């Protein structure tokens, strides 16, 4: 299983992503500089890491979405290849129009850095098939712009097709007005495209993959991907 981790100027979670995929999962995980025009041959998964690509200039992810490597990532996605965008990676996927909507500044006006609870809304996706419906994951997040926004019609369509993969919830799995500190609409923490092969999420599962470091709730997502990509 081969994972490509595109690296932009300002990416800062690329090593965490490579560690989770490489050292923890035992996959062939390689960094890919944003100027590259092609992903490595045989790439199964593209993991767009977190960080502050291009210093968040103009809008978070807007400049990175124009990078040469993004053209091949779009082609990979159109061919049904898996793409996982975490934090800034999610913002980049929205700016590249691989996912609907946009991520605005947190409504609290603060950078939010803490562990949050996520309720699993879909278990039929390549990213979630090892999880249970309604399962609650404790995953760290760290962002200033995680306030997911979409116009009313778009939001209705997204919900109607079951595009939401994860919602911010309380420890008991309840989703309410106060479960998303950042103000995300419908407490959306992660969503997939129509085909279900592109997932964007604000929290960082790659930072929660080792019990020794206190939390391995993120492993479920990586184990799901292992199941999805296992040779038949």
């Amino acid at each position, binding site marked *: 299983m081969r994972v490509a981790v595109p690296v932009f100027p300002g990416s800062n979670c690329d090593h965490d992503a490579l560690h989770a995929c490489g050292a923890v999962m035992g996959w062939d995980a390689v960094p890919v500089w944003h100027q590259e025009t092609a992903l490595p041959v045989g790439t199964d998964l593209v993991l767009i890491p977190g960080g502050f690509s291009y210093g968040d200039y*103009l*809008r978070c992810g*807007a400049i990175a979405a*124009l990078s040469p490597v993004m053209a091949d990532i779009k082609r990979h996605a159109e061919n049904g290849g898996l793409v996982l965008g975490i934090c800034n990676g999610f913002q980049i996927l*929205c*700016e590249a129009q691989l996912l*609907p*909507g*946009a991520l*605005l*500044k*947190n*409504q*609290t*006006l603060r950078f939010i850095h803490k562990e949050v609870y996520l309720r699993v809304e879909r278990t039929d996706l390549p990213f979630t098939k090892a999880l249970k419906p309604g399962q609650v994951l404790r995953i760290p997040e760290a962002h200033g712009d995680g*306030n997911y*926004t*979409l*116009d009313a019609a778009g939001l209705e369509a997204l919900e109607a097709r079951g595009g939401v993969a994860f919602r911010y919830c309380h420890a008991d799995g309840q989703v309410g007005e106060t479960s998303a500190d950042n*103000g995300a609409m419908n407490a959306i923490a992660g969503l997939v495209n129509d085909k279900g092969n592109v997932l964007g999420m604000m929290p960082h599962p790659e930072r929660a993959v080792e019990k020794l470091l206190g939390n391995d709730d993120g492993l479920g997502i990586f184990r799901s991907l292992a199941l999805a990509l296992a040779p038949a």
Partner: protein
Amino acid sequence: MKVRVAVQLKGGILDPQGKAVEQGLHGFGFSVDKVRVGRLIEFEVPASDAETAKAQAQAMCDKLLVNPVMEKAVIEVVS
């Protein structure tokens, strides 16, 4: 020609920066309401008339300068 593009969050979208600035102004005793913070982008384009310059700026807004999910822009040809 010189063009100015004022990018702002759409009306219904919460603007936390505007809110923070508003609170700051209240701290100085100013009576102020509905503060919105935007972004001003200025550039020059090789166009001979305002119409062409405006069309070029509009194309830039569509491609990069504006995210239509949350923002709107006002284009002004300055000179």
